Every structure is written in structure tokens, then in C-alpha cells.
């Protein structure tokens, strides 16, 4: 591929799967600003390293770069605030609020429950959360998830199993009509 052709291939790929990239960023980083920055970084990195693409699933290749940029941003965030995992603190506070809401009247209950699924998903450890988001929200196959996370398919399966088991347990504890 010529460099112009490579550049247009990358920008087409990124634009076609921009929602998927941004959604993954939002679920990993938790806010719009960091997610957008990570996707932008990923685009620049993809454009630079397009020649390393060795065939295979292009969407998985692109999402793998996005995911690496997100993980880099998470690590940088940990270095800045070594003690407080801000996300966890917020999640814990939100969970406490959600648990109180479980007693509320039925009309409020479905909205509360909607929030519960989201909050429990956010509270999962990042390696379980990313696997589940890629499977359930982005509809990726095991093979594609394995490519994005750079792990064997067996690892994808065990992470999905743990993610689902944790989520089921958390929801069952919070709602009377457990899932």
C-alpha cells in the first residue's frame, strides 16, 4: 500500500468503528473527555503503525490499539493518584445510593435497576469489564475479543465466565427478584 492509501485506509477504518472505539473508551475510562482523548491518540498511533497490520480482522486490530491507549491512560491516572481510585470511590457511593433505592416504590424501581446493571458493570475489575463490554455491547466473537485483548481464547472464556458470575451475584444481592 502507498502511504496515501494506508492513511485513507486507517481513517476509513477508524471512522467506521468510531462508535465502538469510543464506547470501549467510555467503559474503560469512565468519562467523555478521557475516552475521546484515548481514541484520538489511538487514531494517530494507528496511522503511524498501519504498515504493521498483517491482515486478519481489521476492526479487532483497530480496537486493540484503542484498548492499549485506554490502558495506558488508566496506568497514567494511577501514577498521578496512587491512593484513591476515584472511579471505585464514586462507584461505591453510587452503589450505596442504588441499594437505598431498592426499597423505593415500584415506579422508580426499573430506573433504579437500570442504573444497577450499569453500576455493577462499572464496578467489575477492568479485565472482566472489557471482555463483557466487547461481547455484549459490541457483539464481538471470542476470536475478535482474543485479538483485541491479546490473550488466548481460553482466557477470554474464563474472563467472560467470571464477569457474568460476578455480575449475577451482585445483581442477586441487590434485587429481590435476583437475576
Amino acid at each position: 500500500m502507498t502511504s496515501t492509501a494506508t492513511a485513507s485506509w486507517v481513517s476509513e477504518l477508524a471512522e467506521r468503528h468510531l462508535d465502538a472505539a469510543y464506547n470501549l473508551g467510555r467503559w474503560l475510562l469512565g468519562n467523555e473527555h478521557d475516552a475521546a482523548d484515548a481514541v484520538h491518540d489511538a487514531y494517530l498511533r494507528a496511522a503511524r503503525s498501519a504498515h504493521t497490520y498483517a491482515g486478519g480482522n481489521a476492526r479487532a486490530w483497530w480496537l486493540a490499539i484503542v484498548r492499549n491507549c485506554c490502558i495506558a491512560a488508566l496506568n497514567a491516572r494511577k501514577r498521578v493518584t496512587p491512593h484513591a481510585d476515584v472511579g471505585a470511590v464514586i462507584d461505591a457511593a453510587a452503589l450505596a445510593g442504588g441499594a437505598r433505592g431498592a426499597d423505593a416504590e415500584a415506579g422508580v424501581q426499573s430506573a433504579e435497576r437500570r442504573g444497577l446493571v450499569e453500576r455493577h458493570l462499572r464496578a467489575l475489575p477492568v479485565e472482566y469489564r472489557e471482555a463483557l463490554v466487547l461481547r455484549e455491547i459490541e457483539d464481538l466473537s471470542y476470536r475478535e475479543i482474543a485479538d483485541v485483548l491479546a490473550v488466548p481464547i481460553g482466557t477470554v472464556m474464563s474472563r467472560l465466565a467470571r464477569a457474568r458470575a460476578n455480575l449475577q451475584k451482585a445483581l442477586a444481592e441487590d434485587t429481590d427478584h435476583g437475576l
Partner: protein
Amino acid sequence: MDCKDAARLLEPYLDGELDRDEARALEAHVDRCAECRAALEALGRLRHAVRSEAPHYPAPDALRERIRQASLPQTSVLRRPRRVPAWWRLAAACFVAFIAGGVVTWVARPPASDQLSRDLFASHWRALAATSPVDVVSSDRHTVRPWFAGKLPQAPLVHDFADQGFPLVGGRIDYAGGERVPVLVYRHDKHLIDVYVMKDDASTRRAAHREGYSLVWTKLDAQPAAVVSDLDAQELARFSALLDGAR
């Protein structure tokens, strides 16, 4: 297959990752074993909860624009970099945040019919990717219907429309909307057409389009039927009318 094997296969089954033989073996076990059936149903409910309640965040327009700008050829020698005034950027950010808030709220509450559409498209694509899109290969409707009758409480009405240009290829059973659904498979030239015969409940059913494939709703023998294919709209309408008229 014992429960230990089955437990290991439940999630790959739900994720569409088993081959046909493994899937059939698991279904045979689940039909017999109430405990494994309950586990599969719980996983199905969890999936439904996550897919319908966890938000999917679409990329903000500002990000789309940033990527577009970054992809333009660098001509900075000829053109001085243009600075966007800070107040304008702030205004734009506020506007985007306002719009994005609305979009996320809207996307975060997909109606149940969206979940069903997703299942139906996913099933169709899985079938296209599989070595065979059918479990019972037959153009003979007198073979296909009894095959369903042995596996589902209610076998669908099966017709061959070969004379009208839509020969029957066969049938299969797939998972959609948390249920096992009979699927009739037809062909039109090179296009494969899946017909999902659903239960007649009162839920809303909407046509949908994804990645060049269409989902339309019609009736088959007074039951709602979803037709998924990459046929063009006109042919799809003609085929839907044939199903609707079948007696």
C-alpha cells in the same frame, strides 16, 4: 453429556460459539435437565439486562471531527494553523455535552424490540458464517415440518415457494428473544432468507436495517414472522406477501 460438561458449554452456546453438533448435544441435555435449563435461562436474563440496560455510548461529533481533521493531509506549509477562539471551543463543548447527554439517555433506553432485532440479525449472520445454514436440509415441506414437530411444542407452517422464485432450503432452530425459535430457510438467487416464526404476543415489532441486511415483519399462519435477508426491498416485500398469503 453430563451437567459438568453442559455447564462449561452454556456460555459458548449462548454466545454462538459452538459448532452445530456440540450445540445439538447441549440442547438435548438442557431439554432433559431442569437445573441446566435454569442456568441457561439465568444467563439469558443477564444478557438481556446488560444489553438493554447498559448504555452504548456513540462517539461525540466533536471526536468525529477531530479524527477527520487529523486524517487530512498535512499542508501546514501553505496554510497557517487556524486557532479556534477559546470561547468558541467552550461553547461548542457545552453544546456537544448537551446533545450527547440527550443521545446517551435515548440510546440507554432501547425498547425490547431492539434486543430482539439484534438477536435476529446475529442469528442470521451466524448462520451465514456456519458451514450450513440449516439443520434439516430439504426442499420438501413434508420433511421439514415433522422435523420441527419433534423438537418444538408447535411446528410452523412450512411452504415451498420454488415456483415463485423462493425455493425452500430447510430449517433450523435458533435462540432469539430468550427463546428457541423455528427458522425456515429460503433462497432467492444467491440470497439466503431466514424466516423466524415467533410467538403471538403483544410486543411491538419494527423493521430494521443493519449493515446491508433488512429485517421485516409479516404473518405466517396468523403468527408473527420476522424475515431477515440482504434481498432488496422490493423482493423482500414480494416474499413477505407470499408468506402472508400462505395457507
